[in-house]
């Protein structure tokens, strides 16, 4: 099913020459089945775990004291929590995009990155999902009042609220991503089952593999639904960030109430996501010596996508500014001026630097093909995308309609602990995944092996 596009110029190959089915299997499976891990892994995971503990502390204090330990106030009712939520959700999107949309577009180069990109999606959505819950004043009620269930009050959720749409969108997104990820894992789990030496390990992977044995009949149905899932995830991933953007565009606050938000948010999400994939892929391939599978070609392509989506996001900023002026609406006009020259001007201009200026470096093939360069750009974009959400949430709220209610917002130490804490949670989960599951789809890599080539008459 999967073939690399006929290349017009001589691109780096998707898989370095000389690999056989076996070598691929051993190389990737070996990472999981080995008994000892690189020191770097141990350090990273333990640090991540400590930071995760900090998250635990911050959340506990929050539950005890209330949302007031954060910087949120009136007029700025939403702060870090929602910023982080949107940021994480956005990051999640790239995973689905790579595994679903690029699959539909028959982009062969997705194969070696989709597995950990999907992992990234799942953990990012977990981090994201935490925030809408804990940002509420009474999480212990929000935890279930936001879902429709028969109750003794005969009261139901209010389905006109974008927050309810969020609940459904995010939970659906999480479920589907998880399914997609797991389905993709089944054949590899079978491989690990057969490859493992120790009985318990065999049993563990065996149970997860559901007794997969590579039967042609199974493969046919498998391929069938894998394609269907991809087809379902594609509109889903677009819808999720659209819905997230509704949280703002349904509101009437100048700077929120904008029709451009859905496409602009989706682009931003993919932008942030690819930046994060690069952030993860570049160290990974180095540490685990996966350069053969995650080649320059992959990095370069991702660089290109980043550049493209970056331009779309830039267009978003420009049109926001343009309509601030063109609308001739005094509130809109003031909003954009306030962003540029108001008390939070430094946030806005840093954002412009991170998200519009920096990615321009990717026009140069030199930058796209130097891992360090790419990594630097990706990091800056990650920061920039967080700033974007800060600018949207805070600078819109802090000066809305009535000058009398204008105010300022600053995150507290607890805000920061919670935010950084989720990064720790993400890192921990991600590296545990790298340890116990194949970070690259083995069975799909096999299809890339030279041995897999068949004559057109026989293969496809």
């Amino acid at each position, binding site marked *: 099913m999967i073939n690399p596009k006929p290349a017009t110029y001589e691109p780096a190959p998707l898989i370095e020459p000389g690999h056989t089915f076996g070598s691929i299997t051993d190389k990737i499976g070996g990472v999981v089945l080995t008994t000892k891990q690189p020191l770097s892994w141990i350090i990273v995971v333990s640090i991540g775990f400590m930071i995760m503990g900090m998250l635990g502390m911050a959340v506990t204090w929050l539950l005890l004291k209330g949302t007031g330990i954060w910087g949120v106030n009136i007029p700025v009712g939403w702060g870090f929590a929602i910023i982080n939520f949107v940021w994480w959700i956005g990051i999640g999107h790239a995973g689905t995009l790579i595994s679903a949309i690029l699959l539909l577009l028959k982009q062969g180069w997705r194969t070696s990155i989709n597995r950990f990109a999907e992992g990234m999606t799942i953990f990012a959505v977990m981090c994201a999902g935490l925030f809408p819950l804990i940002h509420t004043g009474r999480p212990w009620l929000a935890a279930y009042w936001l879902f429709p*269930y*028969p*109750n*003794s*009050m*005969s*009261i139901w959720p209010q389905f006109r609220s974008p927050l309810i749409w969020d609940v459904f969108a995010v939970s659906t997104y999480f479920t589907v991503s998880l399914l997609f990820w797991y389905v993709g894992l089944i054949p590899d789990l079978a491989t690990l*089952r*057969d490859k493992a030496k120790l*009985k318990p390990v*065999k*049993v563990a992977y*065996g*149970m997860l593999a*559901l*007794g997969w044995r590579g039967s042609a009949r199974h493969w046919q149905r498998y391929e069938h639904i894998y394609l269907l899932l991809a087809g379902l995830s594609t509109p889903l991933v677009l819808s999720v960030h659209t819905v997230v953007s509704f949280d703002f565009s349904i509101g009437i606050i100048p700077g929120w109430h904008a029709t451009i938000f859905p496409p602009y948010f989706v682009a931003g999400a993919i932008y942030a996501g690819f930046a994060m994939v690069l952030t993860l892929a570049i160290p990974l391939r180095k540490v685990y010596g996966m350069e053969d599978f995650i080649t320059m070609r992959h990095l370069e392509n991702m660089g290109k996508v980043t550049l493209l989506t970056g331009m779309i996001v830039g267009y978003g900023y420009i049109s926001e500014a343009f309509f601030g002026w063109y609308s001739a609406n005094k509130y809109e006009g003031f909003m954009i001026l306030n962003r540029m020259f108001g008390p939070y001007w430094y946030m806005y201009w840093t954002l412009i630097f991170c998200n519009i200026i920096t990615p321009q470096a990717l026009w140069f093939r030199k930058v796209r093909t130097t891992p360090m360069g790419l990594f630097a750009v990706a990091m800056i974009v990650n920061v920039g995308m967080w700033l974007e959400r800060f600018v949207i949430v805070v600078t819109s709220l802090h000066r809305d309609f009535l000058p009398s209610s204008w105010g300022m917002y600053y995150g507290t130490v607890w805000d920061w602990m919670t935010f950084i804490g989720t990064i720790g949670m993400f890192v921990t989960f991600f590296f545990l995944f790298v340890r116990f599951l194949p970070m690259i789809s083995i069975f799909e890599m096999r299809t890339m092996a030279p041995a897999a080539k068949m004559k057109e008459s026989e293969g496809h």
Partner: protein
Amino acid sequence: MSQVFHRSTNIWSKVSIVLGLAFVTFLAWIVVSLSWSGYVTGQSVTVDQPVQFSHAHHVGSMGIDCRYCHTTVEESPFANIPPTKTCMNCHSQIWTSAPILEPVRASFRDNTPLRWTRVHDLPDFVYFNHSIHVAKGVGCVTCHGRVDRMPLMLQENSLQMSWCLNCHRNPDQYIRPRDQVFSMTYERPANDPDFGKRLVTEYKIADVKQLTSCSTCHR
């Protein structure tokens, strides 16, 4: 040997999946049904009182009107618990030495109030007003049940919001003529379908929109 599992695991794996799902459903069911249970609502649970006061005796046998003790029920949101004085009106004459009434006498003697335990206890964020319900033909029995048959007072209904809404959504099915409000034995005419509807119009009872507005009960 590449065979990891025993034959039987094929069955077991399938069975355990089904059981697992069943178990989760069961748990959910437990939680939901708990919130409706008398344990949470206090429905039909009797509580200890300083005096073993029997409505069955006073209302059922003696036929004392509700308002003899609960004097404010027609004018106040709160149907008062009678002051000790009210008890003593009779019990200074009869049963003057009954040991069971000692707490009452003591209260009257040392001027220390009786401390009853609340039976019908709405949450503090719910504002129920007796006077309007009585005025609009909601019988005591409708909410409190046949107290004339209760040796010890207990909460007849769940007092949950869904229960309140039954009546607030279709009052015509519950209200009765004003003169029957305090009757324990009143039966609505069975053969008269729009009897309730007529009362609703006659008593100018607010429409359902009003009756189901949040601020009608919560403020």
